[in-house]
């Protein structure tokens, strides 16, 4: 009995994180973010950026272009490495290639929006701005340090870098609409969150369900564990339905859009809309609120639907949806396991450990954050729930940022592949520079906010 009493709160802590996470964060933030990432991968002609990364591009163009390229092109590691190697060997050279490599994993639409919702807008913005600045600085430093070796290297060149590409207006419109939905879904301002009018549905079971949920997955504000609402449990149910439909509807969507595809898409839209309505449980009825968020999401979703149907070919839409689904399948299972694990850890790690190591914004604390990021390897996006656990256990936001910058940059896997492209010596210098600059970033950010 003793041990069961010990395990139960830990499992509850994990379940609580998982359910609260699915209900609150996945839908309004990650659903649109996955669609945006899929669209960027398939509908953004890469030549529009790679044309600025050729051998003859001046520095003041190639460095910012590399940083931007890391931001929009590199949503998955299978794009980063070949492009990194190509820029290094056949294009603008070591410096811009390093900038691209640095910015890619840390700053992409999925990581940024997720960080913003889970941890806070300050950290998300710092993650973008500091990554872009330090990405360029580290690139310039690497080029400076290895300028002799680089000058001696006979670089190949590729005609591919001079291929020009324009982004069609319809694609830009689609990106803009998708990003707007992402922002509207996550921004917490009264116009979006306040209800314009309510409707009530009579129900006796609402209250019962609520008290049952509170008993089974209790909230614990001390540890930052959110409880699960009645709306939350419905949203989790809808997500399960979407997943089932998506396996049938999205698996081969690149060759054929079926009834299952359309059904899954409609379900996704309804779920997004339901998630943007605040639901309150009263003794004998449920109240649904119609918010500004609901209205704007509805208008934008309809606009996207019309745009995709009229201005894009079936094949383009199919490839976009396939890519989106591919991201979901690749990232979500690991992310869910990570959220559960990080939630359990919250119940296990004694709070004073984290506070002792990184509770204050010192250089030492920032270095601890960075080193933890280097030695622990978490799959894409899992660094975010892990960071949230640290935050709730008393980590200062400075070291937290340092950790969030270093973790995706320096996984063992990425260091090994970097090594095969640029060699041991350059990789070692790169790793040291990243450690130094991530530590500094966290420290500076920590000072700015306190």
């Amino acid at each position, binding site marked *: 009995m003793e041990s069961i009493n010990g395990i139960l709160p830990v499992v509850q802590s994990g379940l609580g994180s998982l359910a609260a996470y699915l209900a609150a964060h996945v839908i309004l933030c990650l659903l649109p973010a996955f669609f945006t990432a899929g669209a960027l991968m*398939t509908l953004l002609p*890469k030549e529009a950026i*790679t044309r600025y990364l050729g051998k003859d591009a001046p520095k003041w163009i190639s460095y910012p272009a590399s940083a931007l390229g890391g931001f929009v092109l590199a949503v*998955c590691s*299978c*794009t980063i*490495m*070949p*492009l990194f*190697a*190509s820029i290094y*060997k*056949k294009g603008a050279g070591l410096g811009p290639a390093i900038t691209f490599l640095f910015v890619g994993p840390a700053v992409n639409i999925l990581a940024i929006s997720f960080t913003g919702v889970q941890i806070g807008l300050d950290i998300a913005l710092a993650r973008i701005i500091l990554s872009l600045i330090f990405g360029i600085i580290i690139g310039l430093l690497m080029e400076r340090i290895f300028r002799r070796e680089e000058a001696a290297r006979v670089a190949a060149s*590729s*005609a*591919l*870098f001079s291929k020009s590409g324009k982004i069609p207006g319809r694609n830009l419109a689609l990106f803009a609409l998708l990003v707007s939905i992402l922002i509207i879904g996550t921004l917490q301002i009264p116009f979006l969150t306040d209800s314009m009018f309510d409707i009530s549905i009579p129900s006796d079971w609402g209250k019962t369900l609520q008290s049952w949920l509170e008993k089974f997955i209790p909230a614990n504000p001390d540890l930052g564990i959110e409880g699960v609402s009645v709306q939350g449990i419905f949203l989790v149910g809808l997500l399960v339905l979407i997943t089932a439909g998506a396996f049938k509807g999205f698996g081969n969507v*690149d*060759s054929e859009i079926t009834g299952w595809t359309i059904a899954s898409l409609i379900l996704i839209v309804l779920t997004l809309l339901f998630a943007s309505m605040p639901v309150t449980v009263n003794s004998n009825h449920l109240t649904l609120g119609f918010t500004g968020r609901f209205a704007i999401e509805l208008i934008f979703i309809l606009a996207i639907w019309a745009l995709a149907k009229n201005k894009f070919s079936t*094949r383009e839409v199919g*490839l976009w949806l396939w890519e989106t689904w*591919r991201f979901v*399948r*690749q990232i979500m299972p690991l992310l869910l396991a990570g959220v559960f694990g990080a939630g359990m850890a919250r119940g296990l790690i004694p709070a004073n450990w984290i506070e002792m190591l990184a509770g204050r914004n010192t250089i030492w604390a920032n270095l601890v954050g960075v080193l933890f990021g280097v030695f622990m390897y978490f799959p894409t996006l899992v660094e975010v729930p892990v960071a949230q656990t640290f935050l709730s256990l008393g980590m200062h936001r400075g070291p937290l940022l340092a950790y969030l910058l270093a973790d995706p940059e320096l996984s063992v896997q990425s260091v090994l*592949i970097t090594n*095969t*492209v640029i060699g041991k010596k350059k990789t070692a210098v790169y790793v040291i520079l990243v450690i130094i600059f991530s530590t500094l970033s966290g420290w500076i950010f920590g000072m700015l906010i306190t």
Partner: protein
Amino acid sequence: MVIKILGGGCPKCEKLEKLAKEALTDLNIEAQVIKVKNMQDILQYDILETPALVLDEVVKSSGRIPAKEEIMNWLEGIG
């Protein structure tokens, strides 16, 4: 005929390989399909991005998944 699929085992590369094999079956053509995963070997070809399809040492597509009809045209020597 030798078809090479360049790419480090990402889902896109597997999709491309599957499409290439389907195209071969549809046309009833015999060909060797080789997966190239080593980064150094991949960089021998003039591509910026994987997955890429190489037909008898000529790069036919890179950074995207071509339609099956496109691959069939290449196999028949039309495209």
